């Protein structure tokens, strides 16, 4: 019903003003062959962009409506709704918006302003993974340099997969111990003191592009405060017997500073990105750790290169997360290393696309491999067939080893 109201409103607005329509309609079906042919998704979706623009101002609304056949749910989201004011030297954007920073592909290092929707892990298009945030963004332009300031009065967290979803991962607990959730402290109150602020200096110049950024933010992912409830004392050894765990997700403040660059050399596009995160909460097995958490800092870095040979595009990235001041109680590894690889080729005068994108975890020897083939049946009508293949027993990708998926999509762009 809500979506119909939004659609009616959109139609009314577009009729009244000189509003440009664009977007796509899409059908998507996905099958999990390892789960006895379970249809993991049968979805019809509409992405609708309405835009009115002049030299000095602009308005944009971006709706996404999806109808999931499997559970008969109709979902709509207002992904973006903002106004722009443009001047010669600067511009301002106010409203719900996506803010995308950094040079890395498929990895979020300095790209931390817009939180992610991980309800379907990393599988949707990145435009659909990123959430809009209500913010005031200002940009000042000096030659080819841009100074940006983003003020976010209301914190928006990562959307995690719901319990019951094939992407949901329950907090680990010892066998026989009950786990209960206490979400009472999860929300961050909408107060001025709880605002987030981000700044960036970026430039695109001859031979090199770069960005330098900093942020005073909330950790988009909640830290899991774990308190133990004991049943009784074991008479044999005198130790307390653990009865249950109460897991309380809470968001904490996080400071980040970093940058990224890209350049070309002998036909290669070289890029790098890195950020230092201060005061992150990590899970710890240290008995002295309050609520099973310790505060620490970490570095997240990426080095990458892309190259084209005979019309085939290749792209590789090495990504490392390094936990500083590490001790053996940390439940995460001190170094977490990953490679991403992309191979892409277009054929038949850019109507047939072959693509392979992979994440490979070097520590857990797990991977997500995503081959796809796309064909433009006519201008604006594209069919895509692909697979999401998970390998490994553990790690970010190996934990979903049973979620291998084949999918087909048909999208009409207007």
């Amino acid at each position, binding site marked *: 019903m809500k979506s119909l109201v939004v659609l009616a409103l959109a139609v009314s607005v577009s009729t009244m003003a000189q509003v440009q329509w*664009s977007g*796509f309609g899409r059908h998507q079906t996905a099958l999990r062959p390892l789960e006895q042919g379970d249809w993991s998704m049968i979805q019809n979706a509409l992405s609708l962009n309405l835009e009115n623009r002049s030299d000095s101002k602009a308005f944009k609304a971006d709706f996404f409506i999806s109808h999931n056949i499997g559970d008969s749910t109709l979902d709509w989201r207002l992904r973006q709704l903002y106004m722009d004011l*443009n001047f010669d030297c600067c*511009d301002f954007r106010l409203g719900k918006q*996506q803010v*995308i920073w*950094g*040079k890395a592909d498929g990895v979020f290092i300095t790209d931390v302003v817009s939180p992610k929707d991980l309800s379907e892990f990393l599988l949707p*298009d*990145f*435009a659909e993974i990123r959430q809009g945030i209500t913010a005031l963004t200002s*940009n000042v*332009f000096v*030659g*080819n340099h*841009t100074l940006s300031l983003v003020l976010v009065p209301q914190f928006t967290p990562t959307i995690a997969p719901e319990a019951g979803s094939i992407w949901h991962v329950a907090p680990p607990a010892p066998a026989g111990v009950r786990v209960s959730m206490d979400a009472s402290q999860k929300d961050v109150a909408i107060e001025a003191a709880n605002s987030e602020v981000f700044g960036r200096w*970026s430039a*695109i110049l*001859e*031979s090199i*592009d770069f960005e330098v950024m900093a942020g005073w933010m909330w950790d988009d992912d909640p830290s899991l405060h774990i308190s133990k409830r004991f049943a009784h004392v074991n008479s044999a050894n005198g130790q307390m017997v653990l009865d249950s765990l109460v897991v309380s997700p809470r968001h904490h403040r996080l400071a980040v500073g970093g940058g990224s660059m*890209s*350049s*070309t050399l*002998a*036909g*290669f*596009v070289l*890029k790098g990105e890195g950020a230092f995160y201060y005061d992150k909460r990590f899970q710890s097995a240290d008995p002295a750790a309050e609520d099973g958490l310790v505060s620490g800092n970490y570095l997240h870095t990426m080095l990458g290169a*892309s*190259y*084209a040979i005979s*019309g085939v595009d290749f792209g590789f990235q090495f990504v490392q997360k390094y936990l500083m001041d590490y001790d053996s109680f940390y439940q995460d590894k001190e170094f977490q290393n990953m490679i991403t690889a992309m191979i892409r080729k*277009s054929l038949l*005068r*850019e*109507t047939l696309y072959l693509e392979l994108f992979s994440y490979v975890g070097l520590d857990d020897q797990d991977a997500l491999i995503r081959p796809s083939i796309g064909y*433009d049946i*006519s*201008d*604006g009508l*594209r069919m895509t067939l692909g697979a999401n293949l998970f390998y490994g027993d553990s790690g970010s990708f190996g934990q979903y080893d049973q979620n291998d998926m084949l999918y087909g999509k048909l*999208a009409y*762009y*207007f």
Partner: protein
Amino acid sequence: MLVSKTLFAMLALTAISSASPSMNGQQVIEAVYKRVQPKDQQGDLTMLLINSRGEERKREIRQFIKDDEQTEKKIMFFLSPADVRNTSFMNWSHTQQGKEDDQWIYLPALKKVKRISSEGKSDYFMGSDFTYDDLGDRRPDEDNHSLLREEMYQGEACYVVESKSKDKGYLYSRTVTWVIKDKWIGLKKEFYDENNKHLKTLRVMDYKQLDGLWMILHSEMENMQKKHKTVMKLEDLKLNQGIKDSQFGERTMIKGL
């Protein structure tokens, strides 16, 4: 300074033109390369991709170009088809020998301006029959040129010049160009593949003098081997409008038209 350079170039061309009977292939191609261009231009480019069955696909682009004689800056906004709408492409091409072009692409789905390599000169532009190299200004010193003959072509007196790349790995073994003697426009160009077989033919179908400058408005590139072609038309062309340098930057790419 730019005016005096332009004047000098025009005088040089006049001198070359008056000496045309004794011109060699190198001088002809130099004259084409130095044909006076506007300081800036904007226009709507339409490409019609026609396959061997006669089926058509249309691509529409609005482009802005500014040339300060050191760097030619170009920005293109893709208007159609719908799945590439709001994509923009920017190229800074430097006259300094050995200096790579700088190129970026903005993909609205990613909301990012990405630097891309300019080495893919042999790649076809938007699935058309034009490679990036065909669309760019190839410096005369990259090839050896020889005058084959002089002949009339489509009512115009032309020099016919054969060009062979100094780079053995170049995508064409040779090209043959019909250059109009007094206008220095390549009216027709044949491209031969690495096996010296006729690969493509470029034909200029329409050109006009605007603000005293010869501009190509309609051309067709035909792939002789695969029997498909691309029709490229430039409409609503405006010259020397005083486009600001700031137009050619990240802000414009993201903001779009």
